[in-house]
């Protein structure tokens, strides 16, 4: 064993850096591992987050915020538009900087951060779990001991597999995404745009999220078992149709996992946070806020576990219980919404967008109750009504 820690966090994304910061603040010896040489690079994300989704966990800072969002535009398959005005809808982050700040903060509080350090296995040998992590650090094999291991290693999570959890995502439970950061375009700097329709993005949607008034994240997600074409082919068509002129600055691919109510977030002394735990809103694909929340709770529970008297592995299950108590209902609701969304025809989407336009008119909205809104949409005409029974709520 090269060195021993109380806790090892695998992956310095939002979930991992948050967990490491909380652990360090509680005086726990924590090692934060990141396989890439630089934090926040590459990051495959459209970078949007709601005001509440961010500010509950981190104080918003213009240093790492690209745009402040006040409007949301929905465009239906036949081009019907609905524009929602919301004074504090959210932000488009500069995630490269945000992730660096998060990791820096964890390190400032006392977490040991190692970049270029890829976890390559868990160390067996403890009766009730694993006693550490095998790491490829700057190309050399190392072994680090730990009482608790937090897998915050994103959608690909090998920590989950090594711990013996079946985390393979079926093709209907993951969105296949392609995105360009484009420049030399004209966009509204405070408006998110969403484009719906089978020909735009089957089983998903396309987005234009502004990074400034002339740069934007333009991407789309498709459900891979719904189309034989690739996400990038749809994206190439979409971007040409949306912008008469554009310049591609960066290209990103990605996979967004869908929440699975059956997944367990704790196995022995291994906790899964963020995308590793599939803690993503299945309808919109938003995962940053849940990554922060799950990282925070995992860090808190692991800190408590390290205190004398709490060292039973059943104590760690509190992490999963607490997360699901706070967010399980909402994540299940969005899973149902996704199932309904996948059943909607282009005509249904047109009807829903028209309904929203009439329902909200031009007024400014300050809060939305998603459950009652979805019910109201589905009850708004008899075609949509057939979908209501899928909202097992």
């Amino acid at each position: 064993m090269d060195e021993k820690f109380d806790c090892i966090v695998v992956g310095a994304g939002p979930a991992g850096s948050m967990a490491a910061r909380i652990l360090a603040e509680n005086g726990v010896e924590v090692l934060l591992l990141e396989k890439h040489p630089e934090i926040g690079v590459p990051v495959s994300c459209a970078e949007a987050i709601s005001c509440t989704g961010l500010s509950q966990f981190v104080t918003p800072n213009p240093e790492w915020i690209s745009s402040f969002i006040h409007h949301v535009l929905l465009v239906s398959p036949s081009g019907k538009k609905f524009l929602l005005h919301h004074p504090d809808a959210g932000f488009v982050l500069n995630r490269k900087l945000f992730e660096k700040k998060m990791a820096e903060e964890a390190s400032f509080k006392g977490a040991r951060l190692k970049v270029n350090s890829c976890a390559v296995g868990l160390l067996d040998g403890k009766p009730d779990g694993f006693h550490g992590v095998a790491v490829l650090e700057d190309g050399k094999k190392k072994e680090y001991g730990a009482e608790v291991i937090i897998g915050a290693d994103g959608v690909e999570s090998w920590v989950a597999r090594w711990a013996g959890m079946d985390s393979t995502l079926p093709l209907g439970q993951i969105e296949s995404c392609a995105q360009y950061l484009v420049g030399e375009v004209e966009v509204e700097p405070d408006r998110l745009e969403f484009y719906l329709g089978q020909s735009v993005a089957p089983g998903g949607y396309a987005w234009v999220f502004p990074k400034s008034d002339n740069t934007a994240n333009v991407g789309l997600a498709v459900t891979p078992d719904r189309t034989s074409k690739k996400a990038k082919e749809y994206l190439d068509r979409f971007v040409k149709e949306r912008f008469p002129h554009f310049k591609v600055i960066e290209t990103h691919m990605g996979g967004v996992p869908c929440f699975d109510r059956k997944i367990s977030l704790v196995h022995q002394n291994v906790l899964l946070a963020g995308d590793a735990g599939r803690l993503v809103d299945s309808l919109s694909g938003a995962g940053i806020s849940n990554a922060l929340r799950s990282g925070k709770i995992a860090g808190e529970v692991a800190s408590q576990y390290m205190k004398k008297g709490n060292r039973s592995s059943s104590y760690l299950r509190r992490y999963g219980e607490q997360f699901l108590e706070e967010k399980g209902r909402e994540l299940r609701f969005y899973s149902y919404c996704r199932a309904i969304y996948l059943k909607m025809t282009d005509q249904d989407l047109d009807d829903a967008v028209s309904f929203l336009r009439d329902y909200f008119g031009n007024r400014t909205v300050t809060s939305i109750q998603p459950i009652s809104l979805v019910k109201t949409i589905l009850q708004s005409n008899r075609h949509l009504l057939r979908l209501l029974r899928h909202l097992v709520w």
Partner: protein
Amino acid sequence: MLQLDLKLCGECGGCVAVCPQGALELYSHGLLIKSDRCNLCENCIVFCPVGALGINTVQAKNSSLGKDKY
């Protein structure tokens, strides 16, 4: 055999998540295919947003990448 087109791969890790055999690993320097584990179910090929994976059609990646360093 499953093969990867290095020029296309965006190293997103989605294929790793859909592989039921644990045949794919993503290191900071690229994707590693463990051909001995792969049963050619094609999940990763269907998932890949850019079409970087295929069977015997594109140039093979050195499949010992990462392994020998470990």
